[in-house]
């Protein structure tokens, strides 16, 4: 499943909690020309090294969609930071 939202929560002892929900789909739209360029670079590299371009693109896609569920939580003292990709 394609990652859609990145959640960032920061809470420290000084202020209230900061919560950010960052929608990733608009970011993908903005970066889509870069993705097309990267895809072209991957295809050229595969042609040079005689690798299967479909497998390379599939691997990149799996890497991209595999980020869904990634989560890092750090607590130190009264400070908490949470980064979640879903």
């Amino acid at each position: 499943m394609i990652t859609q939202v990145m959640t960032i929560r920061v809470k420290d002892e000084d202020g209230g909690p900061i919560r950010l929900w960052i929608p990733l789909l608009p970011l993908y739209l903005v970066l889509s020309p870069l993705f097309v360029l990267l895809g072209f670079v991957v295809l050229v590299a595969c042609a040079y090294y005689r690798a299967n371009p479909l497998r390379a693109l599939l691997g990149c896609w799996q890497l991209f969609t595999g980020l869904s569920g990634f989560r890092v939580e750090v607590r130190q003292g009264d400070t908490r930071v949470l980064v979640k990709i879903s």
Partner: protein
Amino acid sequence: MSEQRRQILAMLAEGKITADEAERLIAALERDREEPSPASAEPRTRRPKYLRVVVEDRSEHEPAKVNVRIPIQLLRAGVRLASLVPPEALSQANEQLSRAGVPIDLTKLKPGDIEELIDQLADMTVDVEERDATVHVFCE
């Protein structure tokens, strides 16, 4: 179950049942053998979805806790991409790894092996305990 099959064949030989009925009975026996009974069913091996790393520092100065959850899908994607790396580059990487004291042969890593490895990761647990810190690595 061979005893039951023998009984069915004996009834067929004695003419108590027809060949068609014997065939259906044997097929039913094989179906029952394939489906595990609720009483004796072993728990199905659950495929892990995430690799978890939990680090806890209990020092008096500033206790800290780090909790990382990494999808196993990333591991699959990484192995798939690693299989595309040219053999020359893998050999150089192997040399560097062995110099660093990590004797892993990257050329032996294949996408077909990763599924078997992931299946076994469900039971993997790594615990490191020190006086003020613990590291817990497991899959769920």
